[in-house]
Structure formats: structure tokens, C-alpha cells
């Protein structure tokens, strides 16, 4: 029986310890992650779902470069979840469209974004790349989160979705019914956000 509706404050404390301003978080953490696999391809947005248990003011998007790639860079974004399809929907709610160099191994990247509140609910984090593809801190290969929460197709273990989009563009607006591919055999890069 769901008691949360009667005791939202208490329930949220059990579920999530709360956001602390000035910190950097990786959505949906703790999540099994890896730094071993390079981003598979350029010009694709790699997307994974995450949930926020309370409202939070996001100030920056970022990530972790494990092994840099020559002349590579990343753009990042956060999208709403479609209640119709449980897939990313609409214009990005937060976008880092300038692009951040991902050439330095063992470095963190971050880009200031327009301060934006995200309310409780499900979202999608996405990133796309250009240049010699780097290895980013990514969802572990064979992690079950994507299929567990959002559902997939019958097929190999997958860690998220990809959506074709040229790197040169700003992060895309995604229509309901858009075509996605599932990402198997590699991890989807994890985003961090600063609050």
C-alpha cells in the first residue's frame, strides 16, 4: 500500500536524502558504471532515464572523461519523459550546446547552463560527441536500469537509447514517436549536474 500520498515528507526522506546546493550529482546514482568503453559513434545522442525525487535547481551539466579522444568534444542535455511512450520528448529542458572538450584523460567537464528547476519525476539525460571518440564514465555494460524502468525490445542487454543528430546542431527537439536505437555492448555516458 502506498502511504506516500499521506506522508510525502516522511516518504521522501526515506527514499532520498535531499539535494544540497553546491554539490555535483550524477542522476540515478548509485548506478553501476564503467570507464572502459569508448562512446560508440559520433553524431548520436546517447540517452538514459533517471528520476528526481524532489525539485532541484540545476546550474551546470558535466561528465567525466576517462580516456580523452583527439579533437573530441561533447554536448549534453536533459529532456522530459513522454508519459505516452516513456521515451524522451520535446525540446531539451536544459542544454549545454557550446560543447566541452573531451580530450584530457581523467578530467571532469562542465558547462554553465541556464539555471533551471526540474520538478520530481522522470527525465532523460543525453550527450553527443565529435572527433576521436573518448571513453566517458558510462553506465556499466549489462546494467539493467533502462530495461527495468522504461521497457525495451526483445534483444541483447541494453543500457539506453541513441538518437541520430549531427554534432554541429544544438541538442535536438525530439518528437513523440521518434525513432531510437537501443545501445547494447557499450555503456551510455553518464551526465553530472551541479546544483
Amino acid at each position: 500500500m502506498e502511504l506516500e500520498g499521506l506522508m510525502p515528507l516522511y516518504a521522501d526522506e526515506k527514499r532520498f536524502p535531499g539535494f544540497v546546493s553546491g554539490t555535483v550529482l550524477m542522476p540515478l546514482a548509485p548506478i553501476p558504471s564503467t570507464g572502459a568503453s569508448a562512446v560508440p559513434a559520433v553524431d548520436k545522442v546517447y540517452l538514459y532515464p533517471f528520476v528526481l525525487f524532489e525539485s532541484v535547481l540545476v546550474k551546470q551539466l558535466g561528465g567525466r572523461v576517462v580516456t580523452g579522444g583527439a579533437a573530441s568534444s561533447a554536448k549534453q542535455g536533459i529532456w522530459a519523459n513522454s508519459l505516452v511512450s516513456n521515451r524522451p520528448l520535446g525540446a531539451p529542458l536544459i542544454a549545454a550546446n557550446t560543447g566541452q572538450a573531451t580530450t584530457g584523460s581523467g578530467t571532469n567537464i562542465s558547462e554553465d547552463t541556464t539555471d533551471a528547476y526540474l520538478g520530481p519525476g522522470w527525465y532523460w539525460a543525453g550527450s553527443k560527441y565529435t572527433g576521436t571518440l573518448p571513453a566517458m564514465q558510462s553506465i556499466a555494460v549489462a546494467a539493467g536500469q533502462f530495461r527495468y524502468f522504461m521497457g525495451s525490445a526483445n534483444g541483447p542487454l541494453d543500457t539506453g537509447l541513441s538518437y541520430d543528430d549531427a554534432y554541429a546542431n544544438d541538442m535536438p527537439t525530439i518528437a513523440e514517436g521518434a525513432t531510437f536505437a537501443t545501445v547494447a555492448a557499450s555503456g551510455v555516458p553518464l551526465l553530472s549536474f551541479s546544483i
Partner: protein
Amino acid sequence: MLGFRGDLDHPGYLPGRVYGTTLGTANTSVAIALVDTIYLYPFRIFYPVLVKTLIARVVTGGANSEIKCGVYENSGAVNQPVGAPVIAANTGYATATNNTYVTMDVTDTVLSPGWYWMGTKAKATLPILVSVATNSQALSMMGSTQGSTTIQNAWSFADAYAGNMRTFAAGDVLTVVGAGGPPIIDFST
């Protein structure tokens, strides 16, 4: 979304999709340990959902091998599987071919929100299926016995392959599985 906080536990099930029953990282390199043994791990259903098939993934097939599967309700008294399977794939499905997906047709069944157990048994040369991680500690939330290991990935219970998926009775003594191998079974809606 604020009106129904349960949404934050899971975004809901949509028809025509395949849903996983485990979080964390699956194992793809450990064979099922024993024939004639049901391996069981707990999973949670968040909303009423119509289940149409159960799906296993074969990494490395085993000659003449097959599996049967069942979904069991959780006993609130002991947090172990109880009763007859609420969904059963008793036909036996071949797991002999590498890198294949085994779709088991089952009687369409609505699962209500709650905790369940996924059980699988196998025969012949035991295959490597996508399975619960070796150190998943899947039983830690349900409670178990200490056993011979501190790793508690699943329960097992002897059950001859030839029979249908068994009915669990109160007082059945299950065995803690410390090694890897309990197969992960997805479901389609």
C-alpha cells in the same frame, strides 16, 4: 506527477515492451550450477501489468539443454516463494544455441503490485544464461540464512526437471546460492 508519488518508483508499464526484473549489472559468464534445481530471485512489480511472455537470454548454449520458468508470489510470513506458480512456462524451452533469446509463451496473466520470485530450472549440459551477478546479494532485502557463504544471490530448491514448476509449501527449506548463475528472466507486456 505530484498527485501520485508512486510514479517516482517506476514510470509505468506500456504494452508491447520487454521489461527487466533486475537492476544492477547482469552476469554473462557463469553457467547454471545444477540440473533439477529451481533458482529463485526476488523482483518487484509496481503497477498491475499483463504479462504475455517470459524471456531468457542464452549466452552460451548447452547441448540438449532446456529451461522451465515460473513466477511465484512472495509469502509475507517468510519472504520466500509460496504456492503454485502464478505464471508458469512448463513446456520446456531449448537453450542450446549461443546468443539467442528464448521467448516462453505463457497464459496471459495480470500481476498485481508487490513482490514476486522468478524461478528457473534446467536440464542436460547446463548453458550460460544472462544471470544474476555473482555478488548481487539479491536476497539481502528478503532475509536469508547465513549458509556457507556471506554472498546471498538467490534461493535454490531441488525439483526434477521432468515435472511442472513445483508448488512451494510452508516450511520448505530453501538453500542459499552464493555463486552466480540464477538466470534473469524478463517479461513482455
